[in-house]
């Protein structure tokens, strides 16, 4: 054992190995004991993970806890008698596993009471106990197995870090795989190019010089308008938020560093972390206030029904884009700020030294340099616009009446909400189980945009390293 490398992190080990008057340990026996304990505790962790999702593993936890307790006891006794060190951590976890064993023997299979709204299965408790007891014992056994050095201490903490990450990534994997499984087989060309319409109307015809009205109806199902709506929302949002975002970024880096710049910065960060619910309420207020005035056509939106009558809607694409751009402006402003701050000083100073004015430097040096940063910010903002539902929730329409800047706002997210969140599920019965397909299309759009932004960012950091 390398005593020189041992530090405070393995202090009790150091203290115990300092008195060298112990018998010479047999390394093979030690390794065998450690490997068996490692195996059992690793098995227990795996069993814990599985019993968090499966109900029929109820015979295993009790014997596993018993074997784990015996292994830990043997480990402690071996360390105590042969190597002369007392690691009380091992005994504590041995005792804990015994307590867990007794607890699991006592508990009935289903737990309820205390007015709690549920019947808890025993496997949940056994899974949590298994992970919380077997993972630390796995870690310190690994620590001894790897030689009880500081490096072993590093390596033995890897399981604590990796296990939660792995569990969470499994959850994300389940979501993405399920979206693909449910969504991909349903996508077909007809659904992508047909707009949704479900209207009854009266058609006027003339017979013997008298008007006749015949009841007719248009029944079409498809998600074309929702995809187009998402794209239009992205376009309008970027048109509105791009000039404002760039102006904010330039102003707070180049023109003002005083109180006003701080106020603008703070208000941008407040807008960024503002609840989307409050923004949705603002959209409602915008629509309510503008109805009845000359702005009502712009903010409320309008549509023509099948009889050709003119109606005011609940909110137009322009309103939605205006509200979403409040979320996007801080992103673009931040990106512009970063871009301008990353301009090499010699470029800037060279331009000034050659007699260029401030504006000339700004438009010919700073903005071209920070152009890729701005594009990255814009792409992230577009992803935000495509995925936002809460801001347009209260003003959306069902998207029957076409997609134009002044028609009622609709998007893929609202379509998914209509299919899933509507309590009587009437819309879903009409449209079929296409919410997974549209979720898949939405994920492809937003994830594709964020991957593009990532690639751009990587290129940018390469450029900065070269500069």
């Amino acid at each position, binding site marked *: 054992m390398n005593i020189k490398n041992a530090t405070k992190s393995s202090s009790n080990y150091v203290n115990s190995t300092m008195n060298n008057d112990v018998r010479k340990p047999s390394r093979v026996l030690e390794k065998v004991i450690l490997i068996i304990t490692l195996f059992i505790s690793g098995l227990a962790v795996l069993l814990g993970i599985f019993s968090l999702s499966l109900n029929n593993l109820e015979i295993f936890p009790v014997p596993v806890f018993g074997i784990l307790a015996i292994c830990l006891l043997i480990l402690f006794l071996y360390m105590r008698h042969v190597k002369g060190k007392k690691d009380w951590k091992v005994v504590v976890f041995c005792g804990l596993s015994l307590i867990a064993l007794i607890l699991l023997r006592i508990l009935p299979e289903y737990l309820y009471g205390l007015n709690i*709204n549920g019947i808890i*299965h025993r496997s949940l408790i056994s899974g949590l106990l298994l992970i919380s007891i077997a993972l630390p014992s796995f870690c310190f056994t690994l620590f001894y197995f790897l030689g009880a050095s500081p490096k072993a201490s590093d390596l033995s903490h890897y399981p*604590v870090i990796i296990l*939660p990450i792995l569990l969470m990534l499994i959850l994300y994997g389940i979501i993405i795989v399920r979206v693909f499984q449910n969504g991909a087989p349903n996508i077909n060309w007809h659904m992508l190019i047909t707009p949704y319409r479900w209207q009854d109307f009266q058609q006027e015809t003339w017979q013997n010089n008298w008007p006749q009205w015949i009841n007719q109806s248009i029944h079409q199902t498809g998600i074309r308008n929702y995809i187009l709506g998402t794209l239009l929302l992205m376009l309008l949002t970027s048109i509105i938020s791009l*000039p404002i975002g760039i102006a904010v970024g330039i102003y707070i880096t180049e023109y003002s560093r005083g109180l006003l710049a701080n106020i603008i910065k703070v208000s941008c960060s407040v807008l960024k972390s503002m*609840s989307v619910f409050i923004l*949705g309420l603002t959209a409602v207020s915008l629509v309510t206030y503008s109805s009845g005035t000359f702005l009502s056509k712009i903010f409320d939106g309008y549509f023509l029904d099948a009889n050709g009558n003119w109606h005011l809607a609940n909110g137009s694409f322009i309103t939605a884009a205006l509200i979403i751009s409040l979320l996007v402006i801080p992103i673009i402003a931040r990106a512009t700020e970063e871009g301008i701050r990353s301009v090499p000083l010699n470029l800037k100073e060279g331009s000034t030294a050659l007699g260029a004015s401030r504006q000339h430097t700004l438009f010919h040096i700073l903005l071209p340099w920070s152009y890729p940063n701005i594009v990255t910010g814009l792409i992230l903002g577009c*992803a935000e616009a495509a995925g936002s539902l809460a801001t347009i929730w209260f003003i959306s329409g069902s998207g029957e009446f076409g997609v134009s800047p002044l028609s009622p706002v609709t998007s893929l997210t609202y379509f998914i909400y209509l299919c899933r969140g509507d309590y009587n599920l009437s819309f879903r019965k009409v449209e079929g189980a296409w919410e997974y397909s549209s979720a898949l299309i*939405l994920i492809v759009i937003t994830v594709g945009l964020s991957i593009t932004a990532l690639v751009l960012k990587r290129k940018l950091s390469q450029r900065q390293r070269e500069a």
Partner: protein
Amino acid sequence: MQIKKKLKEWPSIIFLVFAILPVIFLILIVLNLVLNSRTAISTLGFSGLFSTQISGIYSSGQGLYGLIPAIWGTFLIIFVSMGIAIPVSLAMAIFSSEFTLGFLGKGMRAMLGILSGIPSIVYALMSIVFAQLFIIPKFTGAGIPPNQLPIPSQRLPYNTSTLLAGIMLSMLIIPFLAPLFDDALRDVPHSLKEASLALGSGRWYTLKKVSFPHALSGLISASSLGILKAMGDVVIVGLVIGFESPLPNPLFDILKSTAPLTSTGAGFSGGFGQSLRSPLRDSAANFTGLLLLILAFIILALVYILQRRFKKRYSQ
């Protein structure tokens, strides 16, 4: 002369006009919330708004708009979602900044960037999968025959509960929170870390005794942003929990569904459809938004005080 000089600086005026817009928007948003909530305050009074009775959506008449259950629901959802999100994000940040495994540690950040592109409605849609995989086998007594259930079966948390919403919300928050934690851990000066490593301590010991205390104030401010996101989300809680609910009887019962402020307000403002909208309900929704804003400011102030304390303790 001065006017000419000012005219030469024309871009600065244009930039100022555009840059002042976010401030104006922010003021207008807050003003709108305050002005619109006057009706609710004058009609219902503070005793009506801060009571435990709520039946705003289902009632045909004026309805009751007590917001105490919603405030409690907000706290519950913050506890559940941040209880899952903070440890996992911390593990992810440590994995990508300190305990890297070759390309895996570098790929972690990229993977989080990709995952942050998934919109919240997808998590709300897929909550049904987690209900089938986790909630129904573990919390509804799946093996007991239906006629022997000790609890009426319609009360069981089949696909709506605070726990399920918290899990889905934590999945939304983690890709947002982990890069912030990562930045906070990377902000620790290299000289401190290298001094610790050069003195012979391992990476875990350095993390525990040097990096973590130094990064603690950054970690706290990052988690306050996560808390704001958990408070402000409305899609997942609206679709998984529902729009209004009474106070849960054992207060910490996360298997009941307790609607937080956002989804309660969304219910007032037409979560079930725009036909149910009325001036009083809209006004109550605006009051809910105002309350959310005030609550967010209180939480931010608490976090700020906590952060300053930790900074002081570390600098001493």
